[in-house]
């Protein structure tokens, strides 16, 4: 009975704070993306003409899903179908990593980040967890 109570409490905490975190994060992502919209990105390997210096820039983030969504995702894996809980988590991580990379480029006074590569990996996964946490790493060359 106590175990079940703890489980319900964790679910409620996970739902409430997870939702709040996510809304805040999306809001902050949008604001920062607009502020850095003048820095363009591309995925081309060749050096575009008209730039005089380059710097290597990176951004990474490790993000974790909340208790409630993890349970929802677990049920989804029984019936199959689209797992929105993970889709939004990965989207947040990716946008955050790209933004951090752009912030570094901005600090270098760059106007473009060329050859952006994004790498996603579930690092530090342990056996007990479905999906512990996820890392997104973005890197590219800032040009000015």
């Amino acid at each position: 009975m106590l175990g079940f109570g703890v489980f319900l409490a964790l679910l409620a905490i996970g739902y409430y704070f997870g939702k709040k975190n996510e809304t805040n994060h999306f809001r902050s992502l949008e604001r920062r993306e607009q502020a850095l919209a003048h820095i363009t990105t591309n995925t081309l390997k060749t050096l575009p003409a008209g730039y005089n210096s380059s710097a290597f820039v990176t951004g990474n983030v490790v993000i974790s899903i909340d208790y409630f969504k993890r349970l929802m995702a677990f049920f989804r894996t029984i019936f199959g179908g689209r797992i929105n809980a993970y889709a939004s988590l990965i989207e947040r991580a990716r946008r955050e990593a790209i933004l951090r990379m752009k912030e570094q480029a901005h600090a270098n006074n760059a106007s473009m980040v060329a050859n952006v590569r994004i790498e996603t990996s579930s690092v530090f996964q342990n056996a007990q967890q479905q999906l512990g946490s996820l890392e997104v790493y973005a890197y590219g060359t800032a040009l000015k």
Partner: protein
Amino acid sequence: MPNIQISNLEAIPGTTITEHLGMVQGNTVRAKHVGRDIMAGLKNIVGGELRGYTELLTDSREECMSRMIAQARDLGANAVLNIRFSTSSVSAGASELFVYGTAVVVE
């Protein structure tokens, strides 16, 4: 000591490649920290960024980059071009970070 330029493009602006010195690489395997893991356990309930891990991975990547740069320096290069990263989890709780690129002399 010459400063080594790093880029994941195939050229450095305003320079031409005069010599190719071959591939250079750096790697590191890092395990997580128990204290950080406890914090991460709490974060797993509410969700969100695991700052400790983000920093750990940033430090690890810097370490493997500095190994790659040391190799390039030994070869007499002044730039490393077209670098790539790769991450793999070796076992539960440990991950390997790997970086590689081409050492060149640019003028």
